[in-house]
């Protein structure tokens, strides 16, 4: 969970990008890294622990500091998990200490069962860490909207966002940076709102 250091007025928050293999999780981080406006020193290196064929092996990691938040130095740590089914233990490790989740779904029709399996896997892995998805801010990103064989947004919503409480969902073309910042800003906003509302003093 988030760490707060009152001595240095520093808040650290962990956001994990989750989703099926080849869905665009790493691409999201690459685009944020390449396009985010930051002051010198506020953006760390993008670290990728990948296989020789550029598939995520352990995780990708990007630390960035938000400029527009006053009062605290707010550092966001963005992680991806490996999407391939065999790396489930690794996904569990990366989820430790998570504050917010971006679920990156692949919009292609033939990937729909993988999306659903990955979402179920997310819920299972959170349960194994004694966490509940309902308690964690998360957003959905329907990626690859530029491909010809994509399912309609309504269908994606029916498949992945058909719950009692619906969460914000974004269409994206991550490799063109479309929808990437919208998604990141929404999860950030949800996280900060959660922290602030949970910790506002209650008056009788």
């Amino acid at each position, binding site marked *: 969970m988030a*760490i707060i250091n*009152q001595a240095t007025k520093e808040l650290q928050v962990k956001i994990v990008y989750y989703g099926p293999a080849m869905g665009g999780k790493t691409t999201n981080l690459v685009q944020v890294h390449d396009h985010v406006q930051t002051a010198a020193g506020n953006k760390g290196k993008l670290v990728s622990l990948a296989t020789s064929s550029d598939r995520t092996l352990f995780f990708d990691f990007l630390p960035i500091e938000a400029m*527009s*938040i006053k*009062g605290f130095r707010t550092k966001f*740590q963005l992680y991806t998990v490996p999407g391939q089914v065999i790396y489930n*233990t690794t996904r569990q490790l990366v989820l430790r*200490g998570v504050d917010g989740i971006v679920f990156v779904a692949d919009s292609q029709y033939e990937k729909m069962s993988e999306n659903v399996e990955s979402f179920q896997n997310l819920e299972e892995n959170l349960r194994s860490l004694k966490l509940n998805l309902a308690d964690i801010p998360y957003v959905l990103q329907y990626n690859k909207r530029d491909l010809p064989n994509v399912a309609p947004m309504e269908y994606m919503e029916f498949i992945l966002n058909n719950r009692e409480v619906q969460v914000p969902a974004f269409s994206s073309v991550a490799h063109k940076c479309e929808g990437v910042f919208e998604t990141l800003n929404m999860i950030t906003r949800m996280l900060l709102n959660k922290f602030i509302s949970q*910790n506002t003093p209650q008056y009788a």
Partner: protein
Amino acid sequence: MATLPQLLEEDIQQLDEALRELLKQTDATTALVIDQGGFLITQHGDDRKFDLTTIAALASGAYMANQTIANLVHETNFNSVYQHGEKFSMFTLAVDEHCMLVVIFQAGVSVGAVKYFATPAAEKIRKQLKEAHQRDPAEGLDLSVLNLADPSEVFKRKRH
């Protein structure tokens, strides 16, 4: 409950003191306290040589991967990891169920001394973190000075 309590100045001072003493005793280069989620809690020593934020994330991942291996071989006491290099070595030791102590030292420095002195240092850190937990277990994060100018766009995209 959050894995870590809210840390006040006195907590950080105590953690820093434990790290300072450890570096003095061992001639190590840098010592960090990290959490298993990959956060850097505090550090002492030479912070210009290394990207400590990234080291914290990776050291946590490496340590947690080792813990998983320990479970697979039915070992319950895999509480440290030693990585031996030609120039620098690194020793990671569990502080409690949530945190770890990481010591980076030149390869010429005795690993025996690092292991020997890291144990009491980890104990001091554990006690302070426990104290912080007990101070007020129900207390959440005090973000009263947080001022979010424009929550809709925390991160802005560069315009070309």
